[in-house]
């Protein structure tokens, strides 16, 4: 069996989540990968160095079309003939493209898998992670997205794959890429950070939300947020952790002023160690927190910083 993995990259650097998808794919068979975009050549070079990758399919495109689901979904459907499974890490990009590919191939996709039982049987969370469903696919080909936090990423160096250039098909047309606006951040990427400091409604406003930065700086942490914090405009949507935001599983997750509704827990309850600071002793976040402090976060935040500075 040979498996094709669609890789997400940023300016040629392969995302860690995509290396988790390669780890999942390796359980199923030999692995080829696909990289697209204006920096596909750089991405292909990085991808070829990933151990276990046999072949890299490189699709260089400078027209903006590789930003669109329509042509990339058609490309994957064209490439599908040679593969039993098509995988990608569950990013916004993959969720945009892979279901469309599945429709073109008359396949029911299997999103967000957390375990592989055999070539047809997979485990995936449903109901915001309130249940784990084991599902068996009757389709000849499987289209799968992988929850990165459930698969240890493969190494980034040591491999030596071949690279093959392929052209992007036109797709059905009718869709034009206008622009992308990325928020710049010096911090580690939320989904692969070792430590995440998240703020919720308890941060009260945009100004106060920034108070999390000195703590995050000390811990080398990414910053996350609850939906309420995003809704109220304390931070933009890409910070959202949860059922409909990003799924994270860092070594340490610190929740400041977050109540812990199920939709939020869905995005962080697989973290190794959870810390919660909340003034309400009954807040549901304490039911999943390893360490909790009941109190006013605005008092505790500076104390935490001082303690970290002390022995650190």
């Amino acid at each position: 069996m040979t498996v094709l993995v669609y890789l997400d990259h940023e300016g040629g650097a392969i995302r860690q989540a995509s290396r988790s998808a390669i780890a999942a794919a390796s359980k199923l068979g030999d692995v080829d990968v696909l990289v697209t975009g204006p920096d596909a050549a750089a991405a292909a070079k990085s991808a070829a160095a990933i151990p276990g990758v046999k072949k890299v399919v490189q699709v260089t495109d400078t027209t903006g079309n590789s930003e669109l689901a329509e042509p990339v979904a058609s490309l994957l459907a064209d490439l599908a003939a040679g593969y039993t499974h098509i995988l990608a890490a569950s990013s916004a990009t993959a969720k945009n493209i892979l279901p469309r590919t599945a429709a073109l191939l008359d396949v029911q996709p299997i999103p967000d898998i957390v375990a592989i039982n055999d070539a047809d049987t997979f485990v995936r969370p449903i109901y915001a992670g309130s249940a784990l469903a084991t599902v068996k696919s009757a389709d000849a080909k499987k289209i799968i997205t992988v929850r990165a936090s459930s698969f240890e990423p493969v190494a980034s160096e040591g491999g030596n794959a071949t690279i093959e250039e392929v052209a992007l098909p036109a797709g059905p047309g009718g869709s034009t890429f206008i622009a992308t606006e990325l928020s710049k951040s010096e911090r580690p990427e939320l989904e692969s950070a070792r430590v995440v400091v998240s703020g919720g409604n308890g941060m009260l406003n945009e100004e106060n939300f920034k108070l999390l930065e000195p703590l995050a700086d000390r811990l080398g942490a990414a910053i996350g947020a609850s939906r309420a914090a995003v809704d109220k405009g304390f931070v933009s949507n890409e910070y959202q952790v949860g059922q409909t935001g990003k799924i994270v599983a860092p070594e340490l997750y610190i929740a400041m002023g977050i109540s812990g509704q199920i939709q939020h827990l869905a995005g962080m309850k697989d973290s190794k160690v959870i810390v919660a600071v909340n003034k309400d002793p009954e807040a549901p976040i304490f039911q999943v927190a390893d360490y909790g402090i009941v109190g006013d976060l605005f008092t505790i935040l500076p104390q935490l910083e001082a303690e970290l500075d002390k022995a650190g």
Partner: protein
Amino acid sequence: MKVLVPVKRVIDYNIKPRVKADGSGVETAGVKMSMNPFDEIAVEEAVRLKEKGVVSEIIAVSIGEAKAQDTLRTAMAMGADRSILVETDVVTEPLSVAKVLKALVEKEKPDLIILGKQAIDDDMNATGQMLAGLLGRPQATFASKVEVADGAVTVMREIDGGSQTVKLALPAIITADLRLNEPRYASLPNIMKARKKPMEKITPADLGVDMTPRLSVVSVAEPPERKAGIKLDSAAELVSRLRNEAKVI
């Protein structure tokens, strides 16, 4: 201009779902059901486009048990003009739903189809993309802003690192994200009015669609439970525990 809005009946998002003792699925008997929250946003967006004079007719569609009528009534109370119930007892999955919707699109010829980005029961996040694929039409998923002008729709969409804007020729498919709008509550007079709005009832067989699921559920289990830890009295104790006990800093 005509808009089609598919709406799904799901367990209300405030209810914590319980896994059935025999591991065959999640308990739905006697559980409060509501319209999928993302679909409320999709209906709201269609209604706003109608209020702006861009849209002339809104058709809500639901595929599922007879009780999905309640969901369609809610959609009509929010402002949909009429609705179609595609009745089936088979568990729906995105591929079969997309096939039903494709058949309806070919019949009704809407200019815009607005779906939710994700059903909060199966968490698939696939139906809109699949419908667009089957129709060979352009798609804009995870929409946070929608503007219709001159036979095209410009959509701002949420992506991992920020946002992206795309322009689609109509007819097109859009899936709604949480930030798109804040859905209205249906007023009592509108709920009364909705009772008189037309609801057509058909079956997947009428549309020639085979609903047999491709994914069969082997078992459904509770996820491993996380135990509540300990409450600490001070930041000093927390830092010391994180360093010496959990060893994560």
